[in-house]
């Protein structure tokens, strides 16, 4: 999570997320991102409830290391028991490796872009659902669908397509019901991409 953001900064957002998790077993791993490596940034991020910290410009190796560290700690029980999307794989690794033609640099670039951009799309979708904003919901779901599908993330693309169609129909009740599943699928795809990119790096 970016620390400097308009309206609500990343530290306040993290504190708010931690507040909602109180009394439950949930703990969403949050990695803070700051533009300048300022003294005290790390401490401020961790104090707000973040689990890790990286500074911009983002270096893929540092980002993946931070993610691995947190995902490795994540208890297995925290994996959401979401309804599976029929048949499709979380990530078509062979397809993606073919697409990048064995270029590990490109693979890491694409994985890094998805790790940066997919949370933004999810946030746009969430706020469009809150505001019952059909157009924004359709656009964000459409964009997420296109990039996920092109990276080989068929399950994420399927759920994003479902939301895109629900936006076209104006069915916010169903769309809101489908949103947690989208979040779960995006999380799985993020982890699968970072694993694959991490493997290419070593």
């Amino acid at each position: 999570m970016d620390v400097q953001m308009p309206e609500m900064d990343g530290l306040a957002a993290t504190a708010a997320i931690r507040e909602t998790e109180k009394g439950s077993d949930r703990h969403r791993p949050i990695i803070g991102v700051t533009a300048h490596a300022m003294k005290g940034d790390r401490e401020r991020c961790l104090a707000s409830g973040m689990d890790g910290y990286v500074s911009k410009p983002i270096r893929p190796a540092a980002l993946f290391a931070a993610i691995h560290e947190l995902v490795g700690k994540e208890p297995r029980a925290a994996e959401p028991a979401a309804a599976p999307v029929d048949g499709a794989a979380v990530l078509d690794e062979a397809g993606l490796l073919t697409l990048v033609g064995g270029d590990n640099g490109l693979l890491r670039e694409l994985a890094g872009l998805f790790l940066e951009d997919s949370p933004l799309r999810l946030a746009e979708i969430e706020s469009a659902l809150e505001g019952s904003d059909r157009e924004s919901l359709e656009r964000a779901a459409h964009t997420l669908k296109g990039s996920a599908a092109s990276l080989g993330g068929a399950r994420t693309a399927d759920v994003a397509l479902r939301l895109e169609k629900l936006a076209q129909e104006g069915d916010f009740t169903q769309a809101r019901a489908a949103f947690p599943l989208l979040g779960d699928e995006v999380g799985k795809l993020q982890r699968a991409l970072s694993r694959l990119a991490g493997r290419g790096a070593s």
Partner: protein
Amino acid sequence: MRVLVADDDRIIVAIVAGLLKAKGHQVIPVFDAMQAMMVAMKQPAPDAIILDINMPGGTGIEAIKRLKASLNTALIPVIVLSGTTDPQIAEKVKALGADAFLKKPVNAVALFEALGRLVPG
């Protein structure tokens, strides 16, 4: 060849650019329809344009119309790359003058087939 790649999703731009660069082509990446038109009208003109039609800054549909209406850009092949759910979209964009329509997800074989067919040499 020099290819203008326009998509508001930078992941798609990165994928297409990666495919093209791997074959030794040059890529001009842009992220909205307005930039796409401005770059297309500059000399030297790109050899081909790969265009999303669902972008902010005026739609890609408008960009196709304008590119095909201007003498400077009418002959540049326009390949539409879209993930739209509209089943008639391929006919619609071709009626506006687009030279090829490719559906997302990005498919390298289809992309190079279209480029090979549309760009001489």
